[in-house]
Each structure stands twice: as structure tokens, then as C-alpha cells.
């Protein structure tokens, strides 16, 4: 009797729990599944409106599409590397300063993070352009004589993107570094390691999950970048999102634009899949140990 009651109670609870996930399921379906499915189906529609592979065939016939993907991955990769190089020392510094001071230094990381991306991008243009502040200053000071091309190219794009992406690298890095037990470093010294040895053999390996998390976030966000390369690239750095806009704005070709979106989505998934084989994504993303 009791057992039966317990069982039915258990079943009720299970049903209730399942029911509780329904709103989440509905919203995921509405927000993600349907639009992405629609994107996929649009990409298989030809000019005439029938099923066709022409949008994908075009990507093979015209080299521009391949080049645009190459540029996108290249820019994202370089941005990620530079973010690690700049972000690691910064995060290390943040993890070492006394707790009371962290807030103040954190503001310097977060303040740009809270400023509009568009504003920061145009600010870089003002600084980097031919008659911009940096060139004018350097020429007035006699550091160089003719303006150096700082913007409207790959370098300008990278500068802007690294600046915008840096917080996305620093925050997970800082979180990972904070979790590192200080006593492990002391133990290393106790066992005769020099500070440099202790850093490389103890601290760096323990901070790697943070590096992986930051790199993944930065890299994947970079793949979809639009504003910064559009403004600072001067039309020479064409990334996938810009190509999609161009196709929509100018050719009004939803099929071709969707196909590009699909390919970008799929390559990103493949990239994540590969990453998850080599890294323990769960522990990186959700802080499990």
C-alpha cells in the first residue's frame, strides 16, 4: 500500500519535473530550432524558389567564398593568439594583487567592456587613420615622416578586435587563476623549485583550462564579427558576416546568404567538436572539477 503510494508520488514528481522544463523547451524551439531550421531550408532554395543546390555550388565555383572563410578564420585565430599573449599577464597580475585592489584594476578591464562596440571601433579609426592622432603625433614629434598605414587593413582590424575581445579572455583566465591554490606554489618552492620553475610547472598548467575557455569564447565570437572589420578593414578584410550582408543588401539573395550562414555554423560546430575531443569542455565551461 505504502509502496504503491510512494511510487505514484514519485511518478507525479517526475511528470511535474518534466512539465517544468516545457517552457524552456518551447523557448529553445522558438528561438533556436525553428530559425536555424528555417535557415537550413532557405539555403536550399534556388532563385526560382525550388529545391536546389545552386547556393552551395556557387561557393565552390567562385573563389571569393573560400577566401572569405579563410580570412575569417585567420583573423579569428590571430585575435585569439594576441588576446592570450596580452590577457595572460594581465589576468596573472589581477590574480596576484591584494583582494582589496582587484576591484580597481578590474574596472580598467570592464570599463571598455561596457562601452559600445561601435564607439570603440570608431575611436580606433580616429586614432589610426592616415591623418589620425597617432600619425599626426608621430609626424609632429619627428618619429616618422610620412603617415604610416595603420587602419583600413588587417593590422587595424586586429587592433580593434583584440581590444574588444580582451575582456572575454581576461575574465575566464582570472577565474581559473583564482581557483589555483596558492599553497601549491609554496609547496613547489619548498621542494626546491625556483619561482620561474614553479610558475611554469605548477601555475601555468593549472591555469590552462582558463586559457582554453577564453580562447574558445574569443575565437567563436570573432567568427561572427561584423562592425570592427567593416570599419577598420577598409573593405580589404572581408569576413563571412560582411559577405552575408553584401549578398542581402545588394543582391537580395536569401538563399545564398543562408547557405553562407549554414556553412559558418557547421564549421563552427566541427571546430567545437574537435575542441571537445582534446579539451574537457564541460570542466572548462562549467567549472566542474
Amino acid at each position, binding site marked *: 500500500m505504502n509502496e504503491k503510494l510512494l511510487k505514484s508520488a514519485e511518478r507525479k514528481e517526475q511528470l511535474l519535473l518534466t512539465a517544468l522544463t516545457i517552457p524552456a523547451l518551447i523557448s529553445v524551439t522558438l528561438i533556436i530550432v525553428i530559425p536555424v531550421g528555417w535557415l537550413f531550408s532557405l539555403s536550399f532554395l534556388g532563385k526560382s524558389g525550388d529545391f536546389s543546390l545552386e547556393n552551395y555550388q*556557387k561557393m565552390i565555383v*567562385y*573563389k*571569393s567564398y573560400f*577566401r*572569405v572563410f579563410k*580570412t575569417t578564420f585567420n583573423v579569428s585565430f590571430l585575435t585569439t593568439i594576441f588576446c592570450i599573449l596580452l590577457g595572460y599577464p594581465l589576468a596573472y597580475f589581477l590574480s596576484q594583487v591584494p583582494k582589496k585592489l582587484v576591484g580597481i584594476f578590474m574596472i580598467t578591464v570592464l570599463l571598455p567592456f561596457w562601452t559600445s562596440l561601435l564607439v570603440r571601433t570608431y575611436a580606433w579609426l580616429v586614432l589610426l*587613420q*592616415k*591623418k589620425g592622432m597617432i600619425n599626426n603625433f608621430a609626424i609632429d614629434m619627428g618619429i616618422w615622416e610620412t603617415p604610416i*598605414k595603420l587602419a*583600413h587593413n588587417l593590422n587595424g582590424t586586429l587592433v580593434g578586435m583584440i581590444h574588444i575581445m580582451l575582456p572575454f579572455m581576461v575574465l575566464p583566465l582570472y577565474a581559473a587563476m583564482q581557483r589555483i591554490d596558492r599553497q601549491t606554489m609554496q609547496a613547489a618552492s619548498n621542494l626546491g623549485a625556483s619561482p620561474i620553475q614553479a610558475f611554469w610547472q605548477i601555475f601555468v598548467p593549472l591555469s590552462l583550462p582558463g586559457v582554453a575557455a577564453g580562447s574558445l569564447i574569443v575565437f567563436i565570437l570573432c567568427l561572427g564579427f561584423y562592425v570592427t572589420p*567593416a570599419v577598420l578593414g*577598409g*573593405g*580589404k578584410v*572581408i569576413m563571412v558576416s*560582411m*559577405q552575408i550582408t*553584401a549578398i*542581402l*543588401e*545588394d*543582391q*537580395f539573395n536569401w538563399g545564398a546568404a543562408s547557405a553562407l550562414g549554414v556553412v559558418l555554423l557547421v564549421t563552427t560546430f566541427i571546430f567545437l567538436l574537435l575542441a571537445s575531443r582534446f579539451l574537457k569542455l564541460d570542466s572548462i565551461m562549467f567549472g566542474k572539477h
Partner: protein
Amino acid sequence: MIFSFKKFFYATACSTLLAGSAFADAVTVVSWGGSYGKAQDAALFTDASRDSGIAINRESGASMSKVMLQVESGAVIWDLVVTGSGGAANAAKNGALEKIDFNVVDVSNFLDNTYTDYCIGSDVFATVGAWNTEKYGEPGTPGAPNSWADFWDVEKYPGTRSLRLNNVDGVLEPAVMAMGIPPEEVYDFLSSEGGIDKAIDKIRELKPHISVYWKSGAMQAQLMKDEEVDFITGWNGRFDNAKKDGAKVGYTFNQALRDYDCFAIPKGAPNKDLAMKFLGEVSKAKYQANLPFHITYGPTNKEAYEITTAPKELIEALPSHPKNFSKMLAVSLDWYANNREVALEKYMEFLSE
């Protein structure tokens, strides 16, 4: 706390109704940003709205692809939209525009080839080569550039260049003329076997000198003001206005590409009839006659030239003035209708190299 759908529904419905009634009789007029939209406000829209009593909402960011999107999704919110002649032709072909009612819009005094069944010319403009006058001299002075061949001549005119991004309109013709082909044969050349490729090869020659690609008229002006580039293609009125703002810029109408902008009404526009009336109003000579004061684009209504109070120098600076008219190449809508897609794909390919 229970969220009340009823309340929410009523609130939404009421606010929609209110918003709807506030704008029910206002025509949404959409133009471009920068000095172009401002010039149209000053010369055309404000006065035409006051005289006709038709209220308008002014918006910026006009684009035919947005119009087509609105029409396709059945959610048209624009009534009267500014577009290039080519964009209008393409949108009309796709069934996205309302037919013009010529009983409401009087085109009897219009210049030839400045209107179609789906769009009414607002102004005549030219795609010109413009340069930094401090570097290459004032237009018309000895040694100053005077042709597209000069645009390509980086030895005589060393410096940076700028061409259009992601859009092939007005990109290939200059390259063909720079090859020494006379203006009247440009479209025959481009239509011939391999013509487009040859034009793009010519642009490729210039690639090392192209420091930035422009995306809009506002950007053309900005690039010249900032002295970011020395020689650029673009729309003549933008450069005159940049000059007024202090930019050291000049251009020539020699071998320039003559074209017109126009007004179109999206299919199923919410205030279609009122928009047609307003279109009839702004197309009147008395408003167009004021346009040259604000931007050097020529009126499409011939009567405007007779009644305008603009000084002679200003009238002579318009692309539609007979003195300039004959020096230019008229943009061929036919050629673009047949070749635009392929040409654009090839140009995009070049851009990604």
C-alpha cells in the same frame, strides 16, 4: 504574481492603436543619410509637406533590398523611398513597387529618361573621379586630372585611391574608359566576350594603390575631408558639400557617369494614395528649383531650370547642365539589367583576392 495576458493584450492593442492613429495620415518618406537627405529636406520635403498639408515622417537608410524584404514579408512600413535608377529597375522587375499614377504625378516637363512606370526621378547626379586639390591641383588648371586614364596614372598622380565596395554600379565603366575606349563604346565593350574580365583586370592594376573601399556617399565625403585618400570615385554633390565643409576636393565631369535618383512607392505601402499625392507635389518645379542651393544635383523637371533663382555658376555646376551633359556617359540600365549579377559576382571575387 500572475502575469495577466488580458492586461498585456489590452495595453499592447491600445498602444498600437494610438501609435497607428498618430501616424495614420503621415507619409513615411525614406531617404539616405549625410548631405543628400539634408538637401532633400531643405529643398523638397519640408516645403512640399507644408504646401500640400500632407504630414510626413522622415526616415533614413533607404534601400531597395529593405523594400523588397518588407514587401516579401507583407509588412510594408515605408511609403515613399529614394533609390538609384538601377535599384528601382531591379525592384520593379521583382514586383516590389507600385505603378506610378501619371494622373497624379505630372512628368510632362521632365527630362528624357529620368522616370519609368515605377519611379520618378528626383535628381540627376554624376559618378565622378574626385581628388585632393592640394595634391593634384584645382580642376581645370594645367596639370590637373581630367580623365579616368589620369585616375589610373599613378606615376603622374602618385597617391592613394578609393573605389566602391560590394557594389558594381559605376565601377567598371571608368576602368574601360581608362583603357582608352571612348565613352560611347563602353557598354559595347563590356557586353563583348571577356569585357567584364578585362575591366576587372584593369582595376586589378590599381589594387596596390587602393587604400580603402567606400560604402556610402557619406563615407566618400568623410574620406576626402580626412585626407585619407587622394583620388576617389563618387557622387559629385557629395564632394561639393564636402568642399563647403572645408575639404580640399575637386572633380571633373569629363567622362563622368550620368545617372538619376528617383522616388518609388513600395508595393502595398500603408499610405499608397497619399504617397502618390506627395510624390506629385515634390516633383513640382517650384521645389526642385531649390535643390541646387543645397546639393549640386540637377532637377529632373525642366521647368525648375526656368524658375530657379540659383546663380548662373551654381546652375552651370549641375550634372544636368548642357555644358556638362555632353561630356558624360549615360549609365545604361539595360546593360545592368542583363549583366549586373555576373559583373557583381566577379567584382566581389576581385575584392576578396
